[in-house]
């Protein structure tokens, strides 16, 4: 059986509709009206031990809502979640020992006490044996570089420091599964890289299953063996990344900087005869988007160089975020057409 099994999961939120003005407020008091928002709509997927799954989707897609249900702090409206053969919200405390959780937006550490104190509290809370605790602290402090701020109160940490401390705290008890909701939000490149390496290492050494949401496609490319994309609470795609790229995009972009600015317009006109998808002039550079199936980069470049001299060019391969963006827009277009 799969480690995480989500079946026809649905969550509907109820939001009171506030009526305007004083009379409205009085009416609300006696007869409150609600609107309903389906944040997660009939989704199903299975996740096996050892996978790193990227759970992606635009803002408001329902990612955090799904994570909350898997973590056991939100009760589904319909459908079911089983994690490690437990129903999370029914077995909250036992479930909590099996999982590690990091919500990027907030901390699970104690605000006013030093990091080491907080970690010690985690030790008692999860009943972590001494040697396991010592070993983990040593290892994690090294990879995550906790030494410089371990005696600082959590409220005085920077965002990146806090996130590292939180990750350490979430993994001290050797959880089987790690849920990360935007673990790299607002971090600089170096810290992001550190965190990614850490997650990878943990996954490799301990076979920890990881489910993470993120808006950073670098996270996805560097970490995830599999992605699940949702939008409007429904699954749009579930599978590996290369297949996603094949399915949704084989486009590349060449950016050219010609020697003479006045060549830009004429060059663009010349390219129209080729089988490219789009040409754009931006910051005195020419951007050409084309489909690899229609034409290759050499054909375009040789055409251009025969017409004018260029200083520089870059080829931007199909990026996962471009693919995902395209998926989102296609989806929202479809949505609009339906209406």
């Amino acid at each position, binding site marked *: 059986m799969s480690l995480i099994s989500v079946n026809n999961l649905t969550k509907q*939120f109820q939001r009171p509709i506030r009526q305007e003005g004083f009379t409205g407020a009085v009416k609300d008091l006696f007869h409150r009206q609600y609107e309903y928002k389906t944040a997660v709509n009939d989704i199903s997927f299975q996740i096996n031990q050892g996978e790193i799954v990227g759970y992606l989707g635009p803002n408001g897609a329902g*990612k*955090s*809502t799904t994570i*909350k249900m898997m*973590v*056991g*702090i*939100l*009760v589904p409206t319909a459908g079911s979640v089983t994690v490690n053969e437990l129903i999370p*919200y029914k077995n*909250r*405390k*036992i479930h*909590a*020992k099996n*999982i590690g*959780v990091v*919500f990027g*937006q*907030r*901390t*699970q550490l*104690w605000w*006013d*006490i030093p990091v080491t*104190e907080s970690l*010690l*509290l985690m030790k*008692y*809370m*999860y009943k972590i044996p001494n040697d396991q605790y010592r070993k983990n602290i040593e290892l994690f402090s090294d990879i995550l570089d906790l030494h410089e701020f371990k005696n600082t*109160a959590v409220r005085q940490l920077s965002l990146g420091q806090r996130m590292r401390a939180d990750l350490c705290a979430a993994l001290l008890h050797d959880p089987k599964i790690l849920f990360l*909701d935007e673990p790299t939000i607002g971090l600089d490149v170096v810290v992001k890289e550190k965190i990614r390496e850490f997650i990878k290492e943990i996954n490799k050494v301990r076979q920890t299953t990881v489910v993470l949401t993120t808006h950073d496609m670098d996270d996805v490319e560097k970490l995830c063996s599999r992605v699940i994309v949702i939008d409007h609470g429904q699954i749009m795609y579930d599978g590996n990344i290369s297949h996603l790229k094949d399915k949704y995009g084989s486009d590349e972009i060449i950016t050219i900087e010609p020697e003479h600015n006045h060549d830009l317009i004429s060059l663009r006109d010349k390219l129209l005869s080729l089988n490219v998808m789009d040409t754009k002039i931006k910051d005195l550079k020419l951007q050409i988007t084309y489909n690899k199936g229609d034409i290759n980069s050499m054909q375009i470049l040789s055409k251009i160089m025969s017409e004018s001299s260029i200083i520089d060019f870059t080829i931007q391969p199909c990026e996962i975020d471009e693919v995902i963006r395209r998926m989102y827009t296609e989806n929202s277009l479809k949505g609009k057409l339906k209406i």
Partner: protein
Amino acid sequence: MKLYLRMLGNSYQQNIAYKANVLMNLMGQILGLFIQISVWVALYGGSQGVNSNIGFVSIQEMIYYVILSTGISMIIGNQVIEQMDGKIKSGIIAMDLIKPMNFFVNILCETLGNNFFRITFQLTPLILIGFFIFDMTIPSFTNMMLFIISLINSFILNFIISFILGIIGFWYLSVWHFSRLLEDVVRLFGGIWIPLWFFPKSLVVVSSFLPFQYIYYVPINIYLEKLSLNKSFEMLTSQYIWILLLSGLTYVLWRKGINSLVIQGG
């Protein structure tokens, strides 16, 4: 156990980080105490005592009453409603619920930490004022013991009532006005400002059906030796009955509430 002791200790220490707060609070309490005492002195208007529904009450006893009720509020007061309200509204409660611990015990530890802090830094000055300025006396050994027991019960009772109101926030996001309401109801029916001694009969009857008088009025009366031994035991029993009833209610509400709780923020 170690965990809970540590949490208690941390919450105690956290208070130290906000020392200025505590000092201001203390000054407010002491000021309030003197104001109340002046009001009662004025009301007594020079007479040595007045008749009440439990008999003669001297001005001295009235002053003790005020000091005791201020002291008790330092020992048993809590910020549970505001705390839970904040946690629910901001969604921070999620961070408590993802941990393998009992939420009730967690809040209890924090409260105990706060209260021990207040006991060291606010109650001590109050006791000094009581004994050196107002010549307070200690009751008999038996009454002192009964007083301490009833005070512990008061703490538990007050905590449970606050927790119940906090849970209501699971359904109605905003509960802080409940906290105002509770404060006022406890103030009135608990006899914090005006002892039930001076209540009209009808109000005395009403409050005998409510748990609030067991929070302040009962321990104060035991301290002041206004109750017979039998009556004292009767009161302690009532405290336990209320604790039992309200604990049951807490359990039921928590079970129901936790399932309808919507974690805010994403």
